[in-house]
């Protein structure tokens, strides 16, 4: 009994640094700026004007849409590319397979900051800077996709071959086996890939700073740092209101679907 109490106490204590920042972000976004550094857990007077200020100071709705649609396209594209490549590397035997797999895997070793200069030049020469193309194409086909390919491959390697053999007997071709048999079974791995990819795209910071230059093209992480007064000083409570709007929807989705979420992610690690 006392062991249980001690455990609960320890867990509650450990929770503080995980929960408090989010709590503080939400409540402080409704405090007047003079109260940001006060010790109080709740605002003395609730103000929501910071929220309307967010939209007055920047095209925040547009920026929200930018981040959202980019993340959705990147997630969908990555799932397709990674599932196909992961499946082929795991289940199909073709000459040069291992060499090609190693070639693709090098992407895991290369932080995106390393290649950003040549990539910037590439997109500049194509006239695609200050568009969203670099933020969509590079993650789907480039280095960020490699982890997804790896996860999918690990999943397909562990899949029992009997199912596919049965489908082959029934006269299904390779593409048919992939689409009708393997892919439906891969839902947990695909779920994990979707979560990883969405978060990665949603959080991208360096790439938008490098590629995008006008506020209506900005993505959310970039926009968050731009709430400054006319003297260039940061407007903290407005920043926090914007931060709250970027964080809370995702947190709500997570709490609603946390079981699928966490178990989907855990699934990828066990077989690693």
């Amino acid at each position, binding site marked *: 009994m006392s062991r249980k109490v001690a455990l609960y106490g320890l867990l509650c204590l450990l929770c503080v640094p*995980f929960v408090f920042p989010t709590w503080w972000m939400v409540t402080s976004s409704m405090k007047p700026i003079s109260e940001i550094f006060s010790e109080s857990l709740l605002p003395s007077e609730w103000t929501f004007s910071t929220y309307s200020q967010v939209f007055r100071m920047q095209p925040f709705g547009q920026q929200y849409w930018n981040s959202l649609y980019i993340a959705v396209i990147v997630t969908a594209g990555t799932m397709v590319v990674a599932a196909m490549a992961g499946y*082929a590397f795991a289940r199909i035997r073709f000459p040069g397979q291992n060499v090609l797999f190693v070639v693709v895997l090098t992407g895991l070793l290369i932080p995106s900051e390393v290649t950003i200069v040549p990539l910037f030049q590439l997109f500049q020469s194509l006239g695609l800077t200050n568009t969203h193309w670099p933020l969509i194409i590079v993650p789907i*086909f480039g*280095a960020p996709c490699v982890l997804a390919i790896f996860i999918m491959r690990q999943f397909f390697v562990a899949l029992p071959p009997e199912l596919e053999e049965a489908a082959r007997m029934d006269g299904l071709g390779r593409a048919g086996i992939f689409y009708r048999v393997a892919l439906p079974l891969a839902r947990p791995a695909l779920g994990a890939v979707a979560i990883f990819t969405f978060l990665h795209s*949603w959080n991208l910071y360096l790439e938008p700073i490098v590629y995008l230059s006008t506020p209506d093209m900005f993505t959310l992480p970039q926009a968050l740092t731009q709430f400054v007064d006319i003297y260039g000083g940061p407007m903290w409570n407005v920043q926090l209101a914007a931060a709250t709007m970027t964080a809370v929807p995702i947190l709500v989705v997570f709490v609603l679907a946390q079981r699928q979420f966490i178990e989907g992610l855990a699934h990828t690690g066990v077989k*690693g």
Partner: protein
Amino acid sequence: MTFWTYRRRDNLVGYLFVAPALLGSLAFVLIPLALVGWYSLNEWNVLGGTFEFIGAENYERLLSDEKLRESLVATTWFAAGLVVLNLSLALLLAVLLNQKLRGTTVFRTLFFSPVLVSLVAWTLVWQLMLQPEGSVNGLLGVVGVDGPNWLRTESAAMVAVIVVQVIKNVGLNMVLFLAALQGVPAPLYEAAKIDGAGAWTRFRRITIPLISPTILLTSIITIVGSLQVFAQIAVLTQGGPGTSTTVLIYYLYQQAFQFHHFGYGATISVLLFVIVAALTLLQWRMRRKWVLHES
């Protein structure tokens, strides 16, 4: 016999399936990497509009660059602190949540939640909380500790960026460990108990070896990830005070995008790539030594 045997069609499908990823790797990873290698042999100042072949000069500069040395020291501290704190905290949380206890799902959700808060939002919040008169010092004051000016004091700034990063991401490793712990067969523990093994011995002799593949995976991901931490540093400390939190990737950003030395920036990129590749290879080799294989 037709030309399109099952074998040949299978090969074709294989190539078609890997083609998008392969072409992407070529265009967005390998060719840019080769270009970075080429740039590193040139003096390239974007503002001055100069691009001139200088051979190994940039590499010689690497060796004598005092700031780079400081940056490597900062990088080592950051990576080491991050990995040790992240993995031990993740394992501790996973073990706590693996107890038979009501409400562990709630705690699991709470510990995991920072993973989903957007990175810049999370960092901005901590930036404010870490101000001298901010909430962190307010909370520390409650227990009688007089906190420093976290982001403007050298050693404290390093501790702060590590802790902020660990709390943000430790949930991921925690979940992986939790899944691994749940895969350890319970009879093993019971047998060990009968043999008189204490809790610590059981943890060290059964749990750790059986979850070693997960420890390897998470340590690779965490170390390589620690070398890519950019936004947090950019928002929290801008590499300061002095160069105390100028990790390699931030130094690279400074050289290339603030001082516009693309050539030297490329040289630092090559160094970063070599370090990441070497670390990954090393860990992969160590796998044979200390990861327990079931077969």
